[in-house]
């Protein structure tokens, strides 16, 4: 017997989670199935909305003003500016104190671990004191054993980028890290736990020891930044404790994969899903689907009747009225490719692409990369369109990185598009259920 729900969301990243939450919010019975961990593990945890116009203008201080000028087919153009605002408010409500930036329409400039700054709309509370658009001087602290963040280099880079404050960087040894290639989570857990570490001064907690290592380097800066390893489950407490000991504001500089702020955001979303009664199964891919025998009338395409979920080799049908496809882009594996084609692997929805794979890229690594825009074209209701602009299925909506027509990396719009389209797709799916 098939598992039955009102709305089935496929994919458990930012877009899928948001869609599921939005649908549940409208009273639908929602299930979310996801194959693997989402792209949030890789992403910085920042919620970019729009940092640069597609033509490259920016950084944009006001992302909302620029939303009106996006080309037809851009996901934001599909859902409209108002929906983007609503989606952000929805996110702010779910995130609560964990995220900041909602007090203003303006983008913030955040220091990156590579050293420059980038525009973003919402940032984790842990980064709030680190804004580069805040003019207080800052001390950046890196660790000898963590090559991803070179604090002295980042400080010089911030200066070159024109940041309006003095930044200094120092590199110290992280107390209690004995292996040169300890995982990021090892640093976080040392700080999370009351576990003690051995230093010259005897046994202390890692927080105490870290503060003692940093203290002598302070030259009156009111804020101190670390790579984003300051705690996993107790990040707020770690930050506050370090801040109290040093008498400064402490912040995290967002990092690349594996990203603790991204994983914290994922945890936050999954907690919210559990709270709102969404049934979640992870580790199970959707592998196939069946349509109903006929469409409502002769010409319209038939709706999806059910999808097949592969649970450790057993194929289990899942049936719903409405489906949301939020399987991610090239990174999440919602869009795949072979030597001669680019495709969407579950429903084989249309993915526009050049026939010759040598037209999928340009020679400048940071040029206008066609591959970065691969994904599904959708109507204003976010329903995937076929090559002739007809509906692929009447009861399927796409959300997040599986959508095409935008380059989130160049625009700095990744999380924002996932939120806005997830929110709209979830709402519409709930509204349309029978």
């Amino acid at each position, binding site marked *: 017997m098939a598992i039955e729900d009102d709305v089935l969301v496929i994919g458990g990243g930012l877009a899928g989670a948001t869609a599921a939450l939005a649908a549940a919010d409208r009273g639908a019975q929602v299930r979310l199935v996801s194959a693997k961990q989402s792209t949030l593990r*890789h*992403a*910085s945890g920042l919620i*970019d909305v729009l*940092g*640069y116009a597609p033509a*490259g203008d*920016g*950084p944009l*201080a006001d992302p909302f003003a620029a939303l009106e000028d996006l080309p037809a087919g851009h996901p934001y153009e599909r859902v409209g500016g108002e929906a983007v605002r609503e989606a952000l408010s929805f996110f702010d409500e779910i995130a609560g*104190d964990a995220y900041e930036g909602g*007090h203003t329409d*303006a983008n*913030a*400039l955040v220091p*990156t*671990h*590579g*050293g*420059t*700054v*980038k*525009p973003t709309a919402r940032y984790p509370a842990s980064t709030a*004191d680190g*804004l580069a*658009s805040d*003019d207080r001087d800052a001390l950046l602290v890196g660790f000898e*054993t963590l*090559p*991803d963040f070179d604090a*002295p*280099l980042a400080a*010089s*880079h911030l200066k*070159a*980028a*024109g940041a*309006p404050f003095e930044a200094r960087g120092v590199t110290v040894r992280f107390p209690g890290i004995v292996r*040169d*290639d300890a995982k990021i989570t090892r640093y976080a857990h040392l700080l999370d736990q009351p576990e003690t570490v051995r230093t010259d001064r005897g046994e202390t907690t890692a927080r105490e020891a870290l503060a003692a290592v940093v203290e002598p380097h302070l030259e009156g800066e*009111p804020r101190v930044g670390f790579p984003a390893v300051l705690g996993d489950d107790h990040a707020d407490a770690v930050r506050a404790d370090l801040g*109290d000991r040093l*008498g*400064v*504001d402490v912040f995290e500089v967002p990092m*690349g*994969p594996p990203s603790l702020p991204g994983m914290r955001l994922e945890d936050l979303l999954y907690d919210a899903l559990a709270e709102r009664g969404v049934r979640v199964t992870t580790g199970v891919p959707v592998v196939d689907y069946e349509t109903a025998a006929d469409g409502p009338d002769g010409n319209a395409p038939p709706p999806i009747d059910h999808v097949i979920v592969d649970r450790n080799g057993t194929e289990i049908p899942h049936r719903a009225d409405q489906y949301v496809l939020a399987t991610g*882009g090239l990174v999440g594996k919602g869009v*795949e*490719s072979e*030597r001669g084609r680019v495709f969407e692997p579950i429903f084989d929805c249309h993915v526009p692409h050049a026939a010759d794979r*040598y037209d999928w*890229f340009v020679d400048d*690594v*940071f040029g206008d990369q066609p*591959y*970065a825009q691969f994904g599904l074209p959708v109507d204003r209701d976010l329903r995937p369109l076929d090559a002739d602009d007809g509906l692929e299925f009447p009861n399927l909506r796409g959300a997040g990185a599986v959508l095409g027509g935008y380059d989130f*990396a*160049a625009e700095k719009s*990744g999380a924002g598009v996932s939120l806005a389209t997830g929110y709209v797709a979830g709402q519409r799916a709930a509204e349309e259920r029978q």
Partner: protein
Amino acid sequence: MARDTAVLVLGGGSTGCGIARDLAMRGLDVTLVERGNLTDGTTGRMHGLLHSGGRYAVSDQASATECIEENEILREIAGHCVEETGGLFVQRPEDSDDYFREKLEGCRECGIPARVLSGSEAREVEPYLADDVKRAIEVPDGAVDPFRLCVANAIDAETHGARVETHAEVIDLLRDGDDIYGVEVRHDSGPGKRTHATPGTTEEITADYVVNATGAWAGQIGAMADLEIEVRPSKGVMTIMNVRQVDTVINRCRPKGDADIVVPHETTAILGTTDEEVSDPDDYPEAGWEVDQMIDTLSELVPILSEARTIRSFWGVRPLYEPPGTGTQDPTDITRDFFLLDHADRDGVSGMSSIVGGKFTTYRAMAEEISDHVCEQLGVNASCATAEEPLPGSENIERLEAGMDDFGLRSPVARRSKQRLGSRACDVLETDEPNPVICQCEGVTRAEIQDAVSQSGSDLNAVRIRTRASMGNCQGGFCCGNMASELHPTHDEETVREALDELFQERWKGERHALWGEQLSQAMLNYALHAATMNRDRDPASAGEDVDFAAFDGGRPEGDRVDGPRGAR
């Protein structure tokens, strides 16, 4: 008139570096100039096969004999650059029995140890061979790291007093009547190690004798002194897989052909190649069908290649040469032998010889012959020692390996580092400082990167060829930035940024030929990391436009903060 140097070698490929080492060891004063990094020419764009000679055992037995001799010498003097993989010449059902027999006889005639394996024995050695392969000949082919070997020659030349200048392009030959007495070079960033963002200079270097070892570019050098050198550059493609589908060199046992060999190399397997004449060694088409041909044709031998992930493709140009009047049509028929052109005998212009053609495997023997010639010209009486003296990194390797510890590294990292560094491992890896891994794919630690930086200035491609950092699956997406950081604070932030951009762009260049499937996903991940997370594509520091920071969100207003007042608590 006193000259700057006794011998000036042009070109920092295997031939040039081999000659520089040979002559320096004979006590001559040597200077070598190379327009890019060492190995920037054909040497850094070859297949990595240490020939047993098997490939030439039917068509060119003189070359085959020389290959097996040099193969055995390089295993001794350059053990840390060679992997003794062994090789197979594999016959498919449709391949000729006669040719198989000729190959076997040829190997025996040339002194190449050869043994016949049945199809099932061959598949025991290499389980991914096609089910229907008929039989195979086993020969002592090997895999060789051209970067490491070339750099080791250059280092040893320097140890023996040579001056090695990279990023020094020859822009003119100095000719006085019928005598060539030196060159004019343009230093990319002044003499010595390269530093980005340093203005270039030019320099005249005079010499008693000039050796033109610029391979496929030898004709361009000759033209600077109105000498005609008929190099016929011929390109070949190589496609790199992300894992080693085979641990043995796999050759197709049939007469010449495209796409007939797979060479395991470090963590990868490299498919090759083609042979097609081009007019300009710096500018020739690199086409997708060539990559397709590698995968499709070699899948006949190793079927899983058709589904496997490739991480990049690259092309090299062979410096083929034939004496005027030979007129061979098909470049595959041009001899692989090398030619020493003494321009005094040939053109009546003294002071310079050019070397063209040849193979990487026989670079040492070529260098010996040329060095003999140079010594004769200069009236020097000194004999060659390169066949006996191990290269730096390969001294007393067995004894050292037994005694070496793991330098506090995880064992897979330690093992790979020691393989790359050979007997230099202790010097490089022994450190009291923390030594984290900088490149995860290839297991390269900070100490090894720092060692390479100390040899090559701010040029990260030079660091790459010395260490393999950024050459694995992620193609630098995850480690380029970390490599660049290692340049700081010796080099300033702007230099570091330029060096990083250059490496990242170089990595992209080869990756473009592998953009489908997993590698396209990897490319998107790399792009997202560098553009979305780091904003390296629109970095205000590089864009040169001032950003109005005050127009952006500077944080919640004071009274509104969740965690109390700002700053100094």
